[in-house]
């Protein structure tokens, strides 16, 4: 399976061109002098300056960041608990309902989730703002965390926990000292996923936010509806840049870890 036919090369190239050219154009034209986004008029960084001077964007970015950090952290705790219960909890009353509630939000259209939460918040007379967005984001992202963590827990050797119990650790100590450190990478990637989902979300935030809280995607949405704007291009470039750096760092770190593991294995083989 190791030879690429010309057809394979073409489909890969075309595919990646399709995936990346739109973003590349965005990035390039964020440095365009002209207000007209589709006509190149020389290099300039003035749109970045304007973006940074725009308080509405900065406020929205701050709200978004707060919401994302808080909701993804709560979601990670709840999602890890849910994953543990699903994989290790055995049978309990309403288990089917529970696992259904974990998996359903993954495929639920955002309009429905948003609408239902909004109607609930209104029904109980809760003022809409940062808190309601956090509640909404936590609810759907905890399900993603739980899926990521439970897939790790399923491959987790249960005898490690049993060994800890056998050596005198209470179930909680066993979780804290053995299970958690080992599944930590999955918990971290669950957190990152929850964080990104929260940063990204437009629809649910639109439903559950009130006049006091506008998130960045909502702000982008209202200006994008009026057409293409160079400021949004600049903002997009910043976001794309951050994500790219993050993902490249993460993959370098994991590559390093893999290399280290390989070296260790060789060392172990020599020691034998």
């Amino acid at each position, binding site marked *: 399976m190791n030879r690429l036919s010309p057809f394979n090369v073409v489909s890969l190239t075309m595919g990646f061109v399709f995936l990346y050219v739109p973003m590349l154009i965005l990035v390039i034209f964020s440095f365009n002098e002209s207000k007209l986004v589709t006509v190149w008029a020389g290099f300039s960084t003035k749109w970045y300056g304007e973006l940074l001077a725009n308080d509405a964007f900065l406020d929205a970015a701050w709200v978004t960041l707060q919401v994302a950090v808080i909701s993804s952290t709560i979601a990670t705790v709840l999602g890890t608990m849910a994953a543990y219960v699903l994989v290790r909890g055995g049978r309990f009353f309403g288990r089917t309902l529970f696992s259904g509630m974990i998996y359903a939000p993954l495929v639920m259209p955002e309009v429905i989730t948003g609408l239902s939460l909004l109607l609930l918040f209104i029904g109980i007379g809760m003022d809409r703002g940062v808190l309601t967005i956090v509640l909404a984001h936590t609810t759907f992202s905890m399900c993603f965390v739980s899926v990521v963590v439970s897939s790790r827990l399923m491959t987790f050797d249960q005898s490690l926990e*049993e060994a800890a119990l*056998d050596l005198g*650790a209470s*179930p909680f100590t066993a979780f804290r000292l053995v299970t958690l450190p080992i599944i930590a990478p999955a918990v971290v990637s669950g957190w990152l996923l929850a964080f990104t989902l929260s940063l990204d979300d437009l629809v649910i935030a639109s439903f559950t936010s009130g006049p006091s809280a506008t998130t960045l995607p909502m702000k982008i949405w209202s200006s994008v509806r009026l057409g293409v704007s160079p400021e949004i291009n600049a903002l997009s470039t910043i976001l794309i840049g951050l994500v790219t750096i993050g993902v490249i760092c993460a993959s370098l770190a994991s590559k390093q870890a893999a290399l280290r593991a390989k070296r*260790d294995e060789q060392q172990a083989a020599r020691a034998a």
Partner: protein
Amino acid sequence: MADTVFAPWDDPDQKPLIRFRNVTKRFGDFTAIDDLTLDIFEQEFFALLGPSGCGKTTMMRMLAGFENPTEGRIELAGNDIAGVPPNKRAVNMMFQSYALFPHLSIWDNIAFGLRRESSDKAAISARVEEMLKLTRLEKFAKRKPHQISGGQRQRVALARSLAKAPKLLLLDEPLGALDAKLREATQFELMDIQEKTGTTFVIVTHDQEEAMTVASRVAVMDEGRIMQVATPEQIYEAPQSVYVADFIGDVNIIRGSATAVGPDRYQIAWAEGRDPVHAVSTRPFSDGQECHLAIRPEKVSIHAEHPAADNAVQGKVLDIAYLGNLSTYHVELPTGEIIKAQVANTRRISRRAFTWEDPVWISWTETAGVLLDQ
């Protein structure tokens, strides 16, 4: 005392360390352990031997506290241990997968259990060093489990489970992951450590050779029941059932009906028109009772001429398996049965006395076989 044989199971005054009393364990409809009663004594090296699914692992997990019996009671030093969680039992376990904590160093792995019950750093450190020394792992203390070899990992697992000086150590297929050479060396090491520490060991294994080598007593299990508990010699030489005889080592089984011909002597009619064979048995048989004569291949000898022996049967060589130190001849009797005879190859490059299709006589003594009723 030095000349007394270690056999507490024969001494009625000895109190067993572990008692299974009519223990039954069911998982849903499946009965893993079926009304089992068993005593294990202090300082024993006790082996639970059986095919996979016979319930031996369930017994071990009940001792460790990961399962509780459905019926009956399990006593440890006279106390019922049902309901005591695994972290509160003076029992430690060495896992089949070793279950070494991958994120902790060898040192921290061994110290894990000690840290749970004491905060005396100096005492913990001294005990860990002692364990490292016992298992010859001093050099690897700072390494992580994936940085050492399989044999070393096995020793870490052993050191970790022994660190708390448990009353009872459970070993679940402890040598299963090692290759044959290393396994043999490790078996002796295990026995050595068991003797040094004086801990009671209960080992679970499906490898009969391993059980015979290390154990003071072996329990052969099948389908949740104990078929026989005895010393390795007794298990091999005096099995109580065809199942045990067949499970341990190689055996020839001759079916027939017994007739008493003297005190403890029986003749066995095994085929129409053939001379009956004779066997000595302390197990009583009524005349005409169905019986099975179990004879080990190494106790059957092979001759060209009719030998002067208690039992002699004619046949022809069907197959020869050359095993280096031994050769096994498969001799087909005119009745279609196949009897295996084993001959030691004491001389190098000797001409084989028999070859395929040769007519031969096989013989064995009256006391060579065991007469079984089931």
